């Protein structure tokens, strides 16, 4: 997609046209040399994550480092991310600095951008606090991206209708079959809570470690067949004869309207909705064994960013106890740094759930899981 010469000639002509048309419009350009420096953060996630940044991180960071101003751009999971990726790729191709200084996104985009050279590789020299992050977590993303918090998917159920909560994945499956139409998970293209249920079915028959590491071989996907069969067989017993709504929030809304009594949900989001009174009082959350997947959310630094210095300061601050405590207190997340750097009281509180989640498949396998789910589960009905 390299732009050919006509584009450049055209660009000049178009520029003249624009100059004539928009002479009076003015052009407030991006913040350049002015003080203080403005960092543009693009954060995708659900509302609880927006709140974590807007009400937690950003005020605290600005107070500690008044030389930086922070501009927050919120993107609903998935929908804006493709646009931001296009924007970064275009900046790279045009040889321009980009106004995306930090991006929290899905691992898929980070993987896609590595061969394009879009990201800055992190190191403890640039971000001293990186030394506190477990090595394997950093290596999983090849040091492209800073894992600053973790969260996991759990099973949410309405205790008014579910008298004995499930303990294992097989319990969940048995309950679904015994109570047709009262369970669903979101389309895995639209949310992690759906991906968790799908991978749980796949992991039921294979070794998770084989798919969470870096190596990728399409041939290994043949082993997923049993998992697909199980999901396919479950379809008639799903809500609305096999309907999977869009996004984590939509599943919570089905639980709220009591269309369903059980679902896989993100622990932090479920608790957030529950405490706001948006779920029935009888809602409960439980983790099964082996646990469902969870992940370390990462923020990635575009190599073309115009404010790398300031963003590195922010990244380092994100790994301080001050910021990490916000992760725990505001979104019930898990810290990004090693547990041993957290206060004893926090360690005590989280000792049962700490890192209690299965690993995510690597982004390439995950992309194939999403595509194959569509092909082998919902379209095969």
């Amino acid at each position, binding site marked *: *997609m390299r732009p050919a010469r006509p584009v450049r000639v055209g660009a000049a002509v*178009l520029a003249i046209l*624009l100059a004539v048309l928009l002479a009076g419009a003015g052009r407030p350009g991006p913040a350049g040399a002015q003080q203080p420096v403005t960092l*543009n953060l693009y954060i995708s996630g659900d*509302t609880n994550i927006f709140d974590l940044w807007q009400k937690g991180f950003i005020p605290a960071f600005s107070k500690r480092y008044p030389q930086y101003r922070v501009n927050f751009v919120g993107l609903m999971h998935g*929908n804006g991310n493709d646009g931001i990726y296009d*924007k970064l790729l275009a*900046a790279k*191709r045009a040889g321009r600095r980009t*106004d995306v200084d930090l991006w929290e996104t899905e691992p898929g985009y980070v993987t896609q951008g590595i061969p394009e050279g879009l990201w800055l590789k992190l190191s403890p020299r640039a971000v001293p606090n990186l030394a506190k992050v477990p090595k394997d977590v950093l290596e999983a993303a090849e040091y492209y991206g800073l894992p600053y918090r973790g969260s996991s998917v759990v099973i949410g159920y309405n205790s008014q209708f579910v008298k004995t909560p499930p303990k294992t994945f097989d319990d969940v499956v048995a309950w679904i079959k015994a109570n047709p139409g009262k369970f669903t998970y979101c389309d895995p293209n639209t949310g992690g809570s759906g991906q968790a249920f799908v991978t749980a079915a796949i992991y039921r028959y294979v070794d998770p470690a084989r798919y969470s590491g870096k190596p990728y071989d399409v041939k290994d996907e043949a082993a997923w067949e049993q998992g697909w069969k199980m999901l396919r067989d479950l379809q008639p017993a799903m809500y609305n004869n096999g309907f999977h709504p869009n996004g984590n929030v939509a599943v919570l809304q089905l639980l709220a309207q009591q269309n369903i009594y059980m679902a896989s949900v993100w622990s932090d989001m479920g608790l957030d909705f529950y405490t706001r009174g948006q779920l029935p009082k009888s809602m409960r959350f439980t983790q099964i064994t082996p646990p469902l997947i969870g992940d370390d959310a990462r923020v990635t630094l575009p190599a073309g960013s115009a404010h790398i210095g300031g963003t590195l300061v922010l990244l380092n601050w994100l790994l301080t106890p001050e910021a990490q405590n916000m992760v725990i207190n505001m979104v019930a997340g898990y810290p990004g740094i090693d547990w041993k750097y957290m206060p004893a009281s926090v360690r005590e509180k989280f000792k049962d759930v700490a890192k209690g989640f299965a690993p995510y498949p690597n982004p390439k396998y995950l992309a194939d899981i999403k595509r194959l789910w569509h092909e082998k589960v919902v379209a095969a009905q």
Partner: protein
Amino acid sequence: MSPTWYWSVGALRRAVGVGAFLALAAFILGPLLTLLLWACAGSWLFPSLLPEFSFKWWAYVLANADVTKAIRMSFASAPLATALSALICVPAAYAFARLRFPGRRALLLSFLSANAFPKIGLYVSIATLFYRLNLMDTFAGVVLIQMVNTLLFMIWIPTGTFRGINTNLEEAARDAGAGPLRTFFQITLPIALPGLIVAVLFAFLAAFDEAQGTLIVGTPNHITMPVMMYTLVLSYPQPVGAVFSVLLSLPSIAFLLLAQRYLRAGYLAAGYSL
């Protein structure tokens, strides 16, 4: 004018007709009224027929300063995009309708591509061009990307309108010694005005609704309403989505009330007379 041709065909048919209209009205208004109810709901759990009323979510939403900023950006950019589009497209539409030039049909058809080519395949190239022109994160860039969506409406509808206007009047004016520009402004334009207003309306709405391109070009400092809309409507609890929806529809509905004078029967005259 005498009573209409199909309106006086008996009471039964009339009753059926009224019933059909009521059903249609329910279909059109039902979803919007539901939204209004949700916006006033503290919570609304099945099987209650009505929600538990509360306005607590309004306070939650109105505390968000980004929303008002985005509304202002939308109302600055969409009208400008529409005006610029009208400025360059109406003369072109006149040419398409009245002048013979090589490749006329192919060029007219080519404007279809502005709406028919799914843009997700184009954004990287468009954004690259915008970076080269230093249009990223600028007001001008947002206006330009919104203009793309208006082209089809601003070319096709006026072309149909001009084509529908009888040339005798123009010829008479020319024969009486009026120059081509004077003929256009004094004869053609007034007759075409209703059709042009419809085109402007659709163009405005197309510019106003543009989301993905504006997201790419406008972030981080030039964010419009539709860019926020997905996030606001879909990722908050249902009443919040409803409050946002009502809030974000209000400007449009106000516009409707302003424009309805032109939309009402009688003003939409002479669009496509053949």
